[in-house]
């Protein structure tokens, strides 16, 4: 019986010739990840069990959520993780100065390659599917067990296939594609399943677009999102990753629960209204409601192409007087690149601010918390109740283009409307 890409990667890591949906397997892990919020809980479990680390060079600990430390308690959490990393000789420990937002940082540092199997104690670990890897979010206890055994148990997922064709119109991005899909299938539309993207439309999507699409697979409840490896993937990996890529293709007779065809050329700028990512609306459904903050960044949209799109819109324009606009490059490398390209001049002259890499406002941590009743247009990934601050505040998820245009007009808008 044929296998999907995800099933082939799981089979290979479980040392099996084939697997089928629903099968329970134990598989070897290429990388285990946690951050400053989830690592301390994993360390508690790890220490309770008197564990020892199996492969200290296959663990990544990234201090990105509440770092630079937002308060004393956060500082203690980071300190605990730092001391653990030192004691256990963890090779990939990223602290302030070297850290970036984990899901932008790890591919950039070459820690994930095509064909890898990765778990991370962060739900957006599914991002690395863009590289043709199987990667999925888990909790801290699974992560602790992963550090001890370098293995994890999985139920082999079935899959939904998304066949993409055509190319995206002007000002429409990978973010609009994934929001459109979540609007279509709902926040549990892919629960427990793989989302496999295929079709001739894939080649038109940039690597950054593919990272954004896989990043939000979890917002449809998926176990993972994954793209086939093509020339763009190989070029990206050649630049960033030392490991030789292991390329898997889906069998022709692979079984999919459902196939959904999407013509990229028909997509429009898409915004998720409060309080679920599935509440998507396209421009004709938007209204003039006033917005107060714009956040550009996160593991979803803090990459260099995102910042370039924002600069393209903000060049020579001013942020609306009622809006605070916060730009957060996802990693130090992206920060430096954006600075060298002069993007910061554009942002600052427009009246935006530029922050050091952090997850910060995305999860209502720090660096841009909303007051009661305030509205933010954000390139982040969740708009749940209270996600960015007060329980009555509102988050509207959007692409960098829409976020930038909204920052200028003080309402949800596309660059065409400027």
């Amino acid at each position, binding site marked *: 019986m044929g296998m999907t890409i995800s099933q082939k990667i799981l089979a290979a890591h479980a040392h099996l010739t084939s697997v089928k949906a629903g099968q329970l397997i134990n598989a070897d892990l290429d990388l285990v990840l946690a951050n400053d919020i989830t690592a301390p809980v994993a360390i508690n479990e790890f220490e*309770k069990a008197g564990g020892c680390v199996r492969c200290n060079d296959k663990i990544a600990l990234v201090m990105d959520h509440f770092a630079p430390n937002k308060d004393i308690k956060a500082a203690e959490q980071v300190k605990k993780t730092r001391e653990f990393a030192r004691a256990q000789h963890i090779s990939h420990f990223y602290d302030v100065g070297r850290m970036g937002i984990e899901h932008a940082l790890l591919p950039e540092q070459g820690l994930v390659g095509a064909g890898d199997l990765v778990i991370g104690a962060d739900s957006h670990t599914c991002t690395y599917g863009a590289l043709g890897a199987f990667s999925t979010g*888990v909790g801290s*206890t699974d992560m602790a067990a992963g550090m001890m055994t370098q293995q994890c148990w999985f139920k082999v997922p079935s899959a939904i296939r998304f066949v993409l064709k055509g190319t995206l119109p002007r000002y429409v991005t990978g973010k609009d594609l994934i929001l459109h899909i979540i609007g279509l299938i709902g926040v*549990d539309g892919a629960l427990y399943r793989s989302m496999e993207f295929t079709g001739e439309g894939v080649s038109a999507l940039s690597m950054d677009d593919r990272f954004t699409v896989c990043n939000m697979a979890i917002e449809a409840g998926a176990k993972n999102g994954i793209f086939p490896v093509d020339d763009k993937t190989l070029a990206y990996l050649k630049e960033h990753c030392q490991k030789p890529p292991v390329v898997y293709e889906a069998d022709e007779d692979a079984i999919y629960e459902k196939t959904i065809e999407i013509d990229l050329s028909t997509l429009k700028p898409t915004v998720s209204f409060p309080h679920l990512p599935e509440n998507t609306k396209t421009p004709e459904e938007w209204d003039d409601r006033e917005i107060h903050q714009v956040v550009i960044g996160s593991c979803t949209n803090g990459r260099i192409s995102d910042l370039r799109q924002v600069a393209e819109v903000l060049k020579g324009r001013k942020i609306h007087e009622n809006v605070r606009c916060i730009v957060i490059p996802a990693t130090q490398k992206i920060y430096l690149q954006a600075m060298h390209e002069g993007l910061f001049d554009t942002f600052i002259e427009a009246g935006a601010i530029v922050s050091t890499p952090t997850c910060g406002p995305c999860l*209502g941590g720090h660096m841009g918390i909303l007051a009661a009743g305030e509205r933010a247009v954000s390139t982040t990934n969740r708009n749940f*109740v*209270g996600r960015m601050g007060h329980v009555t505040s509102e988050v509207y998820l959007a692409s960098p283009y829409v976020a930038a245009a909204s920052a200028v007009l003080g309402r949800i808008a596309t660059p065409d409307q400027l």
Partner: protein
Amino acid sequence: MFVKGHVFKYGSDVDTDVIIPARYLNTSSAEELASHCMEDIDKDFVKNVQKGDILVAEDNFGCGSSREHAPLAIKTSGISLVIANSFARIFYRNAINIGLPILECPKAVEAIQKGDVVSCELSTGIIKNETTGEQFRAEPFPPFIQTIIDAGGLIKSLSHKE
């Protein structure tokens, strides 16, 4: 194990941000997390919850973040069992890994009302609404997962193996 308590009932897509808002994730103390459990969806939850109480919800319970703080806060608040139509997958794993009993049973979810007294024998998955006398049977766990539960969580099940 037999559990019995009053029911707190919620709808679909109860996300981990309302179960335990991120503003409290600067600690990994279970007691401190529990003191803010469900705060953004039900201000009175912490005030009213008693040891043994049961949480009932509709679809996709625990969606969103991977934070294990969510099932940990629920368990530490005193909740003995969560019954839902379905669970988000990371929450499902986390609950099993830390030993928070969870069951999928749409028929029970439909019938049980807020404030009802419900009991359950976890080993059989038989749920009884003591208020109305109705009885339901939840889907049993696959044997593999039952061994993790029986061992008292994932880490303990690993040491059993060794």
